[in-house]
């Protein structure tokens, strides 16, 4: 497909067009795009690469925002700035900018190049879709209202207006969806009916009225339908591209660029706390866990540890969260089996071997899929596998009732310098939903004696984003300073 000549043509499966002809007539009537038509014009290999790299930087920043748990407002601000930096913010029609077509072309082309780079594995596809949908959403929310309406009417979302008699029939239900809307305003709000499967996020939050499989969506939430449509269309398009991709292998110039792009995406994101397993001082033994827990663990792990010591049991997700954490902390498989066996003291050997040992070995990649499961990050702990009524896993800052959180904080951390005078500050942060900030603050308070000051976080102002990072930094702070006087460290070298 990209054979010969200096200027490759990007066409997907379309028939070849004359080299210098721009096929699209008035190609970009709207600022927003569903990218439903591939670019059918010639580009230089330089544009091909630089446009894609620019877009990639924006997408990587979006991923980083998720990884850092930035709020939506923060994410939006960061992304907008990033887009402007790389000429991908896109001017509205009213701006009458002479660059409108140029910017939109860059947007169009770079999107399709990255499709080629990211369609090749399910993992890459998933991440690309998430980042692209976010970018679309950020632009959507800042779009000119009139232009947005025009753009939306140019697309078919399969929605049907709810007529006035039907709106009247379900008035009390529909009003309950919009508790802050007055009588007069309500009259003006239009509802659309779509199949509930088109708005899963709104269904999950109970933001729509459901009847016999139809979701009644108020105009104010229409955007959800649009985002979901964008997401599913892109998913399908990527799968199609992946199937068509092998033909690209012929072009020796394109393939390395695509490889670089997909690797750049992987590297541009703060890495998970994989730090494999090596510990600082070799072996970590089962009986050392209790001591470490009391000195170095963040609250989520401390709570799991204490629950395990108290109940001699942890439920499934608790075992998973704590087990993977201990693995990354450096507990070998033999020590892990020993640790859990000892902790589950009220069950028989037989039951332990049958019901739990396999799972421990599994989490070390020794059974089943033999995957090397990473420990859960704060984001995963906060967002997935919500604790049920009798579970102990999760993030205490998020999942504990305020009074329990305060009591537990004092119980666990008062011997490390946390006092009740610290509680109001922590609780305020929790109330605002900044759980990682609260956790970081507790780290600072409990490591004051190691010279950590407020605002330093776990080093250079970084917030806690992973329990293992918390524990590792805490243990590191305990080690004697480099070049210090500790004689036994020096002895080991010889």
């Amino acid at each position: 497909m990209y054979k010969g000549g200096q200027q490759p043509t990007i066409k997907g499966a379309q028939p070849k067009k004359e080299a210098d002809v721009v096929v699209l007539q008035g190609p970009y009537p709207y600022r927003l795009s569903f990218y439903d038509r591939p670019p059918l014009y010639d580009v230089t290999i330089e544009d091909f690469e630089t446009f894609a790299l620019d877009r990639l930087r924006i997408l990587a920043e979006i991923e980083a925002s998720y990884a850092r748990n930035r709020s939506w407002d923060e994410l939006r601000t960061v992304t907008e700035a990033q887009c402007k930096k790389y000429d991908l913010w896109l001017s509205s029609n009213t701006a009458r900018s002479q660059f409108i077509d140029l910017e939109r072309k860059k947007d169009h082309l770079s999107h399709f190049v990255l499709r080629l780079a990211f369609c090749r594995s399910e993992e890459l596809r998933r991440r690309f879709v998430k980042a692209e949908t976010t970018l679309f959403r950020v632009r959507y929310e800042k779009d000119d209202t009139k232009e947005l309406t025009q753009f939306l009417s140019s697309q078919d979302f399969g929605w049907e207006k709810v007529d006035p008699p039907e709106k009247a029939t379900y008035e009390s239900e529909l009003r309950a969806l919009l508790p802050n809307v007055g009588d007069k305003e309500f009259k003006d709000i239009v509802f659309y009916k779509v199949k509930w499967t088109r708005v899963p996020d709104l269904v999950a939050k109970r933001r729509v009225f459901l009847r016999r499989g139809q979701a009644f969506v108020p105009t104010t939430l229409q955007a959800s339908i649009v985002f979901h449509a964008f997401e599913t269309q892109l998913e399908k398009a990527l799968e199609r591209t992946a199937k068509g991709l092998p033909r690209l292998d012929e072009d020796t110039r394109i393939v390395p660029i695509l490889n670089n792009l997909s690797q750049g995406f992987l590297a541009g994101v703060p890495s998970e706390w994989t730090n494999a397993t090596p510990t600082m001082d070799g072996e970590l033994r089962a009986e050392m866990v209790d001591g470490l827990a009391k000195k170095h663990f963040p609250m989520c792990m401390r709570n799991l540890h204490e629950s395990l010591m108290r109940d001699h049991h942890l439920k499934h997700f608790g075992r998973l969260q704590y087990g993977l954490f201990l693995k990354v902390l450096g507990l070998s498989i033999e020590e892990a089996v020993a640790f859990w066996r000892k902790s589950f003291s009220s069950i028989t050997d037989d039951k332990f071997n049958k019901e739990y040992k396999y799972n421990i070995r599994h989490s070390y990649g020794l059974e089943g899929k033999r995957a090397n499961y990473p420990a859960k990050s704060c984001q995963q702990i906060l967002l997935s596998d919500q604790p049920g009524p009798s579970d102990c896993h999760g993030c205490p800052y998020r999942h504990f009732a305020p009074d329990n959180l305060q009591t537990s904080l004092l119980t666990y951390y008062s011997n490390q310098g946390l006092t009740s005078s610290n509680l109001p500050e922590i609780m305020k942060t929790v109330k605002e939903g900044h759980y990682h900030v609260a956790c970081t603050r507790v780290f600072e308070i409990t490591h004051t004696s190691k010279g950590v000051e407020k605002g330093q976080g776990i080093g250079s102002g970084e917030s806690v984003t992973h329990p293992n990072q918390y524990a590792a930094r805490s243990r590191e702070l305990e080690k004697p300073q480099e070049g210090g006087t500790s004689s036994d460290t020096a002895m080991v070298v010889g």
Partner: protein
Amino acid sequence: MALDSDNEVTPEVMLAFYRLLYPFHSLFTWLNQGQIPTKLFTQREFAFTLAGDVYLRYHSFMSAEELKKQVLAFNPTRFEIGPMYSARPKDRKTVRPSAFTPLLRELVFDIDMTDYDAIRTCCSSADICARCWAFIAAAVRVLDTTLREQFGFRHMLWVYSGRRGIHLWISDADALELTDEQRRALVASLTVIEGGKDMHKKVNVRFTKQSPLPPALWGARETLNDRFGELILRNQDCFASQEGWEALLRLVSDGGIAETLREEWTGSKISSIDKWLRLRELAKGSKSLTSAVFEDILLQYTYPRIDAEVSKHRNHLLKAPFCVHPKTGRVCVPVDPSRIDEFDPVKVPTVGQLLRELNEAGEGADWQKTSLKPYVDLFDQHTKGIMNEVRLAKMKASANDVQDW
């Protein structure tokens, strides 16, 4: 035969059950949604649990007879059903991994009594009695109505899990096709009780503190309102113990009232009903103790507690109907949701009892001569409904084809 031996489940008993009683053909028709084998059956995963906790996955069969033959060969303690994959599960090693993905699957639910341990007072862990079954009955009523009226599902099969819970299988075409994302969303909308055991208030469903209950929960509120008095106050007497009423007072948003009641109730022998009436009386004079607070209490004590993990993924396996629970010997029989309140788990036939009935019925008898019959009939009736709809859909599709010409 003595009653004791009716409950005993030996390998011999299981083998006889599979050979003489298990309704393989009914199971096949239900999963296959028709009489001629389709991919819905032939590419369906079956998993077997053998004695000694051997677990065998990714089996698949071309017909009901082939399934029966394998079951008789393995004589499993139970078997489970998974999704229809894009290829036959038994051939999965011969296709590319990306070409072996789950495609269609009934939407399934699992409700287990253990999730009610924090609120039920009559039994704990593995035990169940008619009194706590009322929690399950309330859950069935709420979910059955919600799934029909809100999501439009029609072909729902409720199956007793053999011990202390109930399963639900939804076979509508729309349900089979749901993606994992859509399943997660649906389950999220049905999940009301949240937060670990350190969270007192487990119901947080309002958009803001003052907003009305989301309409998605209005139906549940109505059903549960009718049951709260009988179930929570009379039957379970949830606020009798100090632990019980302390838990209630932690949900009472008016500190003054909570304090008054704490004084009145400490060391007293006041019944749950009277405590509740007293709370309602005091609430009349309180600004913060609104009807919203009472709605949330109602939901916290009675709203269904579903095991979300089971429902979220297409490839989750669930025990087949008509399997036998190894501890109780009871058969996992279908349950009519409109008669759920009359259902008594203790009266479900055991495998021993059925074999005895069969024995008494004489040579050549099958399940028709045993007390399994009404349950198999209910199952077949359910399948008939599915097949009618499949037939209608096919006719409609071919009519459209003609128009397209």
